């Protein structure tokens, strides 16, 4: 018998969500 391997479902598991991006910060005027 062939068993399917379990695959992590990143989008369905909140604890695996990427941490917020720390840098760069916000653009205050405009970006050249």
């Amino acid at each position, binding site marked *: 018998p062939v068993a399917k391997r379990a695959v992590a479902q990143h989008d369905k598991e909140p604890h695996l969500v990427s941490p*917020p991006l*720390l*840098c*760069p*910060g*916000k*653009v*205050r*005027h*405009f*970006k*050249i």
Partner: protein
Amino acid sequence: VPAAPFVPLGCDDPESEAAAEVAVNYINGHSHHGYKFALNRIENIRVVPQGPNNNIMFLELDLLETRCHVLSPTPLENCTVRSFTEHAVEGDCDIKLQKLDGKITVLATKCHSHADSSEDVVQLCPDCPLLTSLNDTEVTTTVTAALNAYNSKTAGAYLQLLEIGRAQIQYEPAHIVYAEFAVAATNCSAEEAKDNVEACQPLPDDQSNFGFCTATTVTRPTEDLKVDCQLYGHQVPTPDAPLLSRVFQPTSIS
């Protein structure tokens, strides 16, 4: 007691912004040429703990040129950042700071500035005049003519050129040369300078003895020269404004 876990700083954290403010003020305060720069973005921050309440911080900042010359007494928060269509100039800075017992001091800075690419400006604004070389003949001719015109028609101290800060040339539909330059007041009157300009010496190195001028010459279709100068020592406080937001009293000659 176990040490608190080290939490990396985000670029928009208040502590990072406080460090950036100290750094920008330091950079502007130690610059003797060109314009004041304002913070545009904190690109990166790295904190290296040294001990209790003692951190070294490495900051990468993206700055933008303002309209205030470094000699201007106008506080940075009142200085307008130059728009993209003015052909903006960007500053990239690496700064090393120390935060000791909550006090931030700058240990080292390294900055490079560069104008936005002409292609980018033309692409978004085909009619916008581009920055040109400060030693362009048309620019130096405009500045000399403007300063001569100002000195010859204004009573008071004879003004000497300190530096040209910016220049733009527009070719169509009219040929226009625009330049900005810093000036220093001398111990001569304009009349005295006519006889022996070499004898005129700049007044003491005080902010009130400096000024800033803009000059525009039109050579086509008709000829015209316009110069405006603001002397930092001739600021007139407005009656209902606090001292820090007082306005300049410009002198304009056409």
